């Protein structure tokens, strides 16, 4: 998406002042040029607010692979480009010094994190999954009438989350857990 004059035009339309700003600006091309706008040269992407389930459309403005501004997308029919404080703060989910960018490992009984290569983490996690499945997998069980039933169930691993990830990711997680045999399989909707 390209930075939208749409944004302002819509904005105008969305308030009682249709075209107001257009007029304001056209009256003063020099002024307009004189005051620089940080998102003028930025790329705009269509986002959806990651907080509540209203699903406000957002415009994410970036420069040099960095987010410089996030505001509402005025085209969004059910939100008209408005945001709540959380939506308006979305930028700090990405640009935030508290955010870890390296995989971390905490050994049993240790009192500190250790940075680890991401590949090492995957190998280790996969090993834990594999070992638990091999050790605790239940293939067959007797039903209430004592007949053998194939249950192919793994109770030693539980999976929780998430209502904060995308549909595609939810599906992939369901697919992984269910095909792997996991039955403790939940997310926030339950609480």
């Amino acid at each position, binding site marked *: 998406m390209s930075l939208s004059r749409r944004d302002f035009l819509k904005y105008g339309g969305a308030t*009682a002042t249709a075209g107001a700003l257009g007029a304001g600006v056209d009256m003063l091309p020099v*002024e307009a040029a004189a005051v620089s706008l940080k998102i003028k040269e930025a790329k705009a992407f269509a986002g959806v607010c990651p907080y509540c389930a209203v699903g406000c459309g957002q415009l994410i403005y970036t420069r040099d692979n960095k987010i410089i501004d996030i505001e*509402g997308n005025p085209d969004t029919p059910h939100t008209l480009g*408005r945001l709540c404080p959380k*939506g308006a703060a979305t930028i700090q989910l990405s640009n935030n010094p508290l955010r870890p960018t390296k995989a971390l490992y905490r050994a049993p009984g240790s009192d500190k994190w250790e940075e680890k290569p991401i590949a090492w983490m995957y190998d280790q996690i996969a090993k834990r999954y594999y070992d638990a499945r091999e050790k605790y997998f239940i293939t067959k069980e007797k039903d209430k009438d004592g007949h053998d039933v194939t249950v192919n169930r793994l109770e030693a691993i539980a999976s929780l989350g998430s209502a904060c990830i995308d549909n595609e990711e939810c599906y992939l997680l369901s697919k992984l857990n269910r095909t792997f045999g996991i039955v403790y399989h939940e997310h926030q909707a339950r609480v």
Partner: protein
Amino acid sequence: MARTLAMFTDTSLCIGCRACQVACKQWNELGLEVPEWTGGYQNHAHFTDKTYRLVRFVEAPGAKPNGDLAWLLMSDVCKHCAQAGCLDACPTGAIYRTEFGTVNINQDVCNGCRYCVASCPFGVVSFNEQTGTAKKCTFCNDRIHNGLGPACAKACPTDSIQFGFRDELVAKANKRVETLKGMGFKDAQLYGADSGGFLGGLNAFFLLLAKPATYNLPDNPKLPQRNVVVDSLLSIGSAVLVGLGAMLAFRERGKGGR
């Protein structure tokens, strides 16, 4: 001069969500600020060099038309006064009025004398220790000069903050007051909409559901510089008195002399 732009904050539509406060912080890249206990939800207690939009929360028992408790929510901001104390006070010309009628501080010119801070009837202008300059709502000067509305007005979910040409908004506001009066909000009133009223009218004006004092706003704010002539004349008066006194004391013509 372009047609005057304004922000109309209709507190009867405010749900106190503070999207405006955050949207302002985000766009203007204002820093982190440690909140203080205000007794309720409101933070921060006052406008600061890092808070240009501030939602006020006021519990008003019995103020609802049906006599129930009212929780008055108001998104406050720099009023961009038509007669602005800060602008008159500024000795450097850093504070100026834009062609849209808004009042802005040129951060490259301000030298931090703080006379504007003392001269704002609303306690809006604040001093920033890091930059050594005065800060306040810019009416998103960069945005309005590029066809975008102020960040706060754009974010507002309920149209409590409306942005546009002043004359149009005032007309709208007057209608809204009538509607609200009809709904039983007997104290519904506009604050700063009348350009014949105090400070020549505010370019960020408000619709209130109770008396201004309830929102901690002055009933009739005045331009601080209104007395400069009187005060100067009185000073000259006392100069003359002490001057005469001294002349009498030193009067020596003829005696000795040259």
